[in-house]
């Protein structure tokens, strides 16, 4: 029984978080020791510019006027950010928004496949483990899951790079699209994209280990429930029982785990894209760090955070649609 009030409250909370993150990034740019603005000024001056010129450039890049009193600057920064003006990249000399917008789809592409496949594997493996609880398959899969949970995705990424790419030459060692093929909706190009995304997606499959252990626990709980016993006595088919009873009730709690892992995977894409030299949001951010390209760096940070906020907002808002019991009283679904 979700109330409108609850949805509004949840929305307000998300807006509060976005505001807090923007404020945080402003503070980092402006107030922290070694803040971005100071560092950029110093750099431009070292490049032989006059302080006035440096200031001008900084203002242009960060969309932040260093001379204005801090509160005015803050208000301007927040407004600019909310309007999508994240400044101009120092290195690329392009608006940060454009750069991010160009890179984002590639990252989303890899992440959505990773999440989809790893949760599919996790749910299937977890269900199998629960069904044969205590059997050989259970022990085997549990050990596999623990091992998967112990391997950082970048370790798997490096191993895949070494073997699948350099040693055996099955997959390309880097890049995001085939060279020499015209971009567009043609089979060669799409196959090339998939081909390049395979190793990054496979690396992220370590997440399936954790997911399968969660699914195992949920399924065991459902298998022992009263309603399952009644359903069996009512003579429902195994298919109905496994899909409508076990799967639906056991997968429900996984839903929020899934959306939370989106946040973690976004963060992880920095390392992942670095390993595979995959030009997406992560690699863009990594380069921004290395080049101390503050506008791009902070813009990417704000963008990723907003993406996570939206993911979690969707999780909360739609959870009541997936689970009729959730709602106003239960704002702790994740």
């Amino acid at each position, binding site marked *: 029984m979700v*109330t*409108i*009030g609850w949805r509004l409250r949840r929305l307000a909370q998300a807006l509060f978080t976005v505001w807090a993150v923007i404020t945080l990034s402003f503070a980092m740019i402006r107030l922290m020791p070694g803040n971005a603005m100071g560092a950029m000024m110093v750099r431009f001056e070292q490049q032989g510019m006059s302080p006035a010129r440096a200031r001008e450039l900084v203002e242009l890049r960060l969309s932040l006027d260093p001379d204005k009193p801090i509160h005015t600057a803050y208000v301007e920064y927040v407004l600019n950010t909310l309007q999508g003006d994240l400044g101009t990249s120092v290195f690329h000399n392009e608006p940060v928004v454009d750069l991010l917008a160009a890179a984002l789809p590639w990252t989303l592409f890899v992440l959505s496949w990773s999440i989809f496949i790893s949760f599919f594997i996790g749910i299937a493996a977890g269900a199998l483990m629960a069904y044969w609880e205590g059997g050989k398959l259970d022990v085997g899969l549990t050990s596999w899951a623990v091992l998967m949970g112990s391997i950082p995705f970048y370790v798997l990424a490096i191993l895949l790079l070494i073997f699948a790419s350099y040693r055996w030459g099955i997959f390309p060692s880097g890049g995001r699209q085939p060279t020499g093929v015209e971009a567009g909706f043609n089979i060669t190009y799409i196959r090339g994209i998939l081909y390049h995304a395979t190793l990054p997606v496979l690396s992220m499959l370590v997440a399936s280990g954790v997911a399968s252990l969660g699914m195992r626990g949920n399924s065991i709980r459902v298998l022992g429930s009263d309603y399952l*016993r009644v359903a*069996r006595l*009512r003579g429902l088919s195994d298919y*109905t029982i496994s899909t409508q009873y076990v799967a639906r009730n056991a997968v429900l709690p996984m839903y929020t785990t899934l959306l939370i892992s989106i946040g973690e995977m976004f963060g992880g894409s920095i390392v992942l894209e670095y390993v595979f030299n995959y030009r997406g949001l992560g690699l863009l951010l990594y380069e921004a760090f290395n080049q101390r390209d503050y506008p791009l760096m902070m813009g990417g940070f704000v963008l990723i955070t907003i993406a996570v906020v939206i993911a979690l907002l969707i999780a909360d808002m739609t959870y009541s649609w997936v689970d009729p019991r959730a709602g106003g009283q239960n704002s702790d679904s994740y």
Partner: protein
Amino acid sequence: MTTSQSTSLDDPTAADPVVEIRNATVRFGMERGESRVLDDVSLDLERNEIFGVVGESGSGKSMLASAMLDAVVEPGILDGSITYRPEAGDPIDVLGLTTNELRTFRWEEIAMVFQGAMSSFNPVRKIDTHFVETLSAHDYDVDEGMERARGLISDLYMDPERVLDSYPHELSGGMKQRTLIALSLILEPDVLVMDEPTAALDLLMQRSIVSLIEEIKEEYDLTILFITHDLPLVADLADRIAVMYAFEFVELGPTEEILQHASHPYTRLLLKSTPNLASPIEAMRPIEGSAPDPVNVPSGCSFHLRCPLADEQCVEVDPEAYSVSDSSVSVTGSDSDSDLSPDSDATSIPNSDAGDHVANCHYWEDAPETIPMTEEWDVEGIDAIDSAPGPSRTADPLVSMEDVEVHFETEGSFLDFFSEPDTVQAVDGISLDIYENDVVVLVGESGCGKTTFGKTAVGLQEPTDGAVKYRGQDIWDLKRSGGDGTMSFDTVRRALQIVHQDPGSALNAHRRVGTSLEVPLKRWNPELDGNDRKSRIVSLLEHVGMSPAEDYIDRYPHQLSGGEQQRVALIRAMLMNPDLILADEPVSALDVSLRVEMMDLMIELQEQFDTSYLFVSHDLSNARYIAEKTGGRIGVVYLGELVEIGRPEEIIHDPQHPYTQALRWATPEPDFEGGGMGGESPIREIDVPDPTDPPSGCRYHTRCPEAREVCTREHPEPNEASAAAYHEAACFRTDDHHEYWNSPSITDGGD
């Protein structure tokens, strides 16, 4: 709603069993050895009868239910034979069915209703899908089936459209239970097995459902196996009753026979240990000892350890089923062809059905004499008994509540502009004085606010309006001001204690008994050192019968039985040396036969510690037991209001408020004298109205059979209900000159 008059014993076509169970045994292999959780049970379920199976928890009665459907959970092994005889067609050997045949057999021929209706539905699917999927799984016509479902649901006094369109969590417990009954009948089975179908429900709902079962049985031509721990409840319904003890039947016979001529000592003791409204409280006695563990069932008669009649023979020879009518000839339950016994001895064998009455006891003939149902009982009967004198209620009250209100706002304050916040009026203007050594028992349906009111009385819930005073001081003022020199909030805190319903969760699972019991002593008796504290705890534990106490203090709560846990919780409250204890359904989590014992212990401790009790109970029999034994009062709560209060004599025998009369009606009574009971249901609506939107005027008018037009607009205030002392009721009918008497009735066209 109408109830069929008392169960007719019109002989169901004799020797036409619909289910024959022979030597059913269920075994579990355990580390400690093999356990038999159903031991060689044979039974003929006659067509169109209601057969009651009575047993305490852990007696194997649920296993019998599972066995009927060959649905014993793994790794249990079911032996014996179960034969189902459909009205037309060949008998079916249930245990010989293949998986697929079994799938068809269940629910189409024999269906089952579980105790756990709360968890019997898939939480993420609407009710109608449960019906649809059952119909299609059995290849029934769905449209036709859903039509039948709607019929069933409205026969159970619910709105079919609303129920079918709900998710399980949107229905109340009573509605879920009735929906489950409808679901069990959707495929038109011949036999319905009901395993404690009402145990989790209030008395009024229980009684209503029992009446519905009678109606439904007639309408749908059912045979019902009704399993319960509650003998009086099933006595009102069943044609025949079997009593289970230690995984086997100990006595079986027609209901009247069992009630009036119980021949197994266990049955007799069970009847005596069950609090009820009719027999004098002196007659109620606990059964000593406890039921055996399935691995170590005693040799010979499994009851011999607890039986007052037991001798050598009982230890060595497992008694067969002795026919009670035909002395000393051993017959099996199925041997019913010989019911030609002439009415030779009319006093002991009132009718020919007695031929079916068997008891597994070597000394069944001696049992009635050794265990009389009416010991120390003035035969003049019920009217002659009078409760204990009770405290003087003239001095200043210990705790007094003045017009107390507790309103809960449901979630949705911050930023919630659009919806009016719902307010649950848990307690709405109750005034009550509790005196020194006083006992007040609050009764009412669940959700009526009696527990909230109780917690308000002991300062655990702050009232939203009104005052709670301890010895004249407003306790919440005291808490805020920090005391005025004469009294501090600490004093109040110490004086008012609580004992919870579920002893398992009232004790911290991570702390040993000793550590839990040390808490009040550490807090309030800092002068005691560790050994002093331990000594006091040990002597208390021994006093309540938990010895060796040195062993008990090192245990964790999960290593105690429910009764022991409740004793520890009780001791813990007593160690505070309180003035008033709120006992929130302290016995409802315990087995029937342990309840009287626990209530006796509480009463004994009350005398020793000089405390007062505020009991909360949904069971009028328990309320009467406590109140009568201590000279206390019973207060009846309905939707946040105290509708009637008085001494048990008045509340039980001269109830003035129609709601009290309904509770009285709902309380099952074993009928030792014959004659039957029951009668018309005195409520017009089965379900309690929504507490967030209580009815106007008198809150009971929506269910009251006596409601008149004035009741819908005017709110009755409590006033003198009868000549008896302390008897008050909030009903216009107590005032002979009220305009009520001229107001038109609203019940005629009612549902």
